């Protein structure tokens, strides 16, 4: 397989991200030297412009709350109005494109509602921030696999709409990855799970992650994995449970030290991390204690009992169960008809969550054996394997989570594709003109289940251009709406009388245009080159050091293995490698390394022989 053919699977999570890869023995997650697979989805910006991602960035959160960005996934494909609840708690600055444009006296001419994060005076889109995380995941995979990675499958919550999916795909492109497929997280979980589960079954996946919730109902039979329905909330997750704990403690702190006590961003960050830690501890212990240093010698300590945490969580878990009932209804199944419930996402470690899910479906059906943090990445790797042609026996049929339609006269939502339709799928609609000689028509495309266009999610305005001038009502413009296997919409248009393709100009409501993404890809690549070289140099220097030490040792152990010519050759190659290690050209170092390796071959062989002999000798001694 050529290098270009490798596709990795990436779980781009609200709280943690990680990669998986398909091997002949099955899917495995990518781990660092310490054995850890999870990379916290946290980015820290230092004033000197350096960027760190992962555990190091998370550690940074308390000392530098304004420049530490987390939960970016919640912002993907959203407008400022959608985020009121998040803006209340996020310590870093989130601004709307319209606000910025107004402040600068120039309203965004296309009136898009985009979200930007402002750190150290720099504005960044959620797509660019997610790309920073994806780049880190990619770099770690490259280090672990020892090869370049250019293609990926990225997972998203099943209930993500078109804008959120497009934003995820754009983030991948900005990170220098060709995104071969966007896969739904619950479906990915079943792909990982399905590998050791050969018998036919109807399965529900309960996926409660850091910021999103999904329930999918699937039928697995004869190598076909068919999604029957999916329901969820892209704004409901472990973050909300943390927030309950934060609010509880903050309230008590205020009632003790005064209602007007202002929390510094650093205290708030500390509180959030403590709340998260307490949530995790309570899953295994009856109580957890949180201590907050409020400064001036004031330390607030509070012990939370598991029952108390469960009472705070109840309303959120109730909401997840409501989505379960809706998804079951759409699939035409009762809880009794579900053979197994696969629990995915870190929050499903919480005993209360398992208990409530067990009450709905039956406790014996709740399946928690899979590692809930890693199963999605494993499934993404399986999907990557399917796309690479390594697995032909598995057919995955997924659905679109939301109905797609257009705004009709009077502001109603005219549905063209119903939710839970198997993708890819398509529909078409004929439009005409209202004025003589009209050459363009506007269509407002929507996603959602509500009757009124205003209550649905606006995907964007599509302007059909290049319509031949005709009397009003003359043209017949057939517009095709195609939702591909990624759940992303593609629109095409043709004037039926003239047979001419009409061009479709798309203005996404909450997304980036193709030109903007291209510009970001370019900017990112210009920056990425030095980054990549630096990374490569570190790896090469480590490897070269290892080789030089091995040669030195071998020359002491088996000096007789080399003829004088061979020795001369080796000394020359070693000297060359040492010189080149002082310079910064990876290709030159690599070439010299190969020369040393070749010249040292007789040494390596002699050493191997010696080891063999010793082993044999050792055995004989034992036998005696």
């Amino acid at each position, binding site marked *: 397989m050529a290098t270009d053919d490798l596709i990795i699977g990436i779980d781009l999570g609200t709280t943690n991200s990680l990669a998986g890869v398909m091997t002949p023995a099955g899917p495995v997650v990518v781990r660092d030297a310490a054995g850890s697979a999870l990379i916290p989805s946290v980015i820290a910006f230092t004033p000197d412009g350096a960027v760190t991602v992962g555990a190091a960035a998370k550690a940074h959160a308390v000392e530098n709350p304004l420049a530490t960005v987390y939960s970016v996934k919640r912002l993907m494909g959203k407008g400022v109005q959608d985020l009121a609840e998040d803006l209340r708690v996020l310590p870093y600055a989130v601004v709307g494109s319209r606000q910025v444009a107004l402040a600068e006296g120039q309203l965004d001419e296309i009136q898009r509602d985009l979200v930007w994060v402002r750190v150290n005076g720099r504005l960044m889109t959620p797509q660019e921030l997610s790309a920073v995380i994806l780049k880190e995941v990619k770099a770690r995979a490259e280090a672990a696999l020892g090869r370049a990675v250019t293609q990926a499958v990225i997972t998203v919550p099943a209930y993500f709409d078109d804008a959120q999916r497009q934003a995820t795909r754009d983030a991948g492109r900005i990170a220098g990855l060709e995104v071969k497929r966007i896969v739904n997280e619950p479906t990915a979980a079943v792909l990982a799970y399905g590998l050791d589960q050969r018998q036919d079954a109807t399965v529900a996946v309960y996926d409660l992650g850091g910021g999103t919730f999904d329930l999918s109902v699937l039928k697995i039979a004869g190598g076909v994995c068919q999604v029957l329905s999916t329901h969820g909330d892209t704004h409901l997750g472990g973050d909300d449970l943390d927030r309950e704990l934060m609010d509880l403690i903050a309230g008590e702190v205020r009632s003790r030290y005064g209602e007007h006590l202002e929390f510094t961003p650093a205290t708030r960050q500390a509180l959030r991390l403590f709340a998260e830690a307490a949530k995790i501890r309570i899953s295994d212990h009856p109580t957890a204690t949180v201590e907050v240093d409020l400064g001036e010698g004031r330390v607030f300590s509070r012990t939370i009992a598991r029952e108390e945490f469960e009472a705070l969580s109840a309303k959120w878990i109730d909401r997840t169960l409501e989505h379960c009932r809706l998804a079951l209804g759409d699939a035409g199944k009762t809880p009794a008809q579900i053979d197994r419930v696969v629990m995915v996402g870190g929050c499903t470690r919480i005993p209360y969550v398992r208990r409530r899910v067990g009450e709905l479906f039956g406790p014996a059906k709740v399946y928690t054996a899979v590692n809930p943090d890693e199963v999605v990445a494993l499934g993404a790797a399986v999907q990557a394997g399917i796309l690479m042609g390594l697995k032909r026996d598995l057919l995955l049929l997924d659905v679109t989570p939301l109905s797609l339609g257009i705004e009709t006269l009077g502001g109603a939502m005219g549905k063209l594709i119903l939710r839970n339709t198997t993708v*890819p799928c398509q529909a078409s609609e004929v439009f005409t003109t209202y004025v003589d000689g009209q050459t363009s028509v506007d269509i407002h495309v929507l996603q959602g289940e509500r009757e009124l266009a205003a209550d649905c999610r606006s995907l964007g305005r599509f302007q059909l251009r290049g319509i031949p001038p005709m009397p009003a009502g003359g043209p017949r413009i057939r517009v095709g709406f195609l939702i591909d296997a990624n759940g992303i919409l593609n629109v095409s248009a043709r004037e039926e009388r003239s047979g001419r393709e009409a061009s479709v100009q798309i203005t996404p409501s909450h997304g980036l245009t193709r030109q903007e993404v291209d510009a970001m890809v370019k900017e990112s690549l210009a920056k990425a080159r030095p980054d990549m070289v630096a990374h490569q140099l570190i790896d090469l220097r480590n490897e070269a050091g290892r080789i030089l030490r091995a040669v030195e040792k071998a020359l002491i152990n088996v000096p007789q293995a080399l003829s004088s010519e061979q020795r001369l050759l080796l000394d020359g190659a070693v000297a060359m490698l040492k010189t080149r290690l002082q310079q910064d050209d990876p290709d030159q170092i690599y070439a010299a390394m190969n020369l040393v390796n070749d010249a040292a071959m007789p040494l390596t062989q002699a050493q191997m022989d010696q080891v063999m002999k010793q082993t044999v000798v050792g055995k004989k001694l034992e036998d005696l």
Partner: protein
Amino acid sequence: MDKAKQQVVPAKCVHCSREMTQPVLCDSCASLNPLPAVTDHFALLGLPRRFELDEKLLHERYVALSRHSHPDFHANDDPEVRMLALQVSSSVNDAYRTLSDPVLRAGYLLGLLGGTSMAQEKSVPEGFLSSIMMLQEEFQDAKAAGDAKTLGDLGEVLRNQKEGFLRRVRTAFEQLDSASACEAARQDVLHEIRQLLNAVAYVRKMMTLM
């Protein structure tokens, strides 16, 4: 009637030039062929154009076609082949979705046979409206009283009604199959099917409201 039953003429595979017994997927070289300009859901899935249908065979045909046309299996092909896979698999999905649901299947087949659409013909079978209005009143009363048992019973009544109408739809389609003589009688049957399907749509809507 003969026209309606006509099978699609076998075409030749654009890749291996051998004759194909079904559209789109070549039986000899298993490669995808462009969608025929004129095709219908029955022909695409290689099934006879009839209301009565073997659900197991339908599913088998669907899976077999999907295994060759799904974009997952063409990720590394040329852009044209990928585009073709996208078109074929979305058509196959549409065909399966329509044919696997008896109500959608009936409406679709009615259209193929020259019947009217719901937009063109809104009438319902005689006596249906008064019975549905009575049910609606009972439903409202039970809902106001929070009478879960009556609500459950009403759901059962609606399900039975729907099944009853579908049985009559099936019988009507059988009548058409048995090649009845005159065109006027045929039109009558098509009209009856439309009315029955309209009634089913009413009942379905009421079921979702409950």
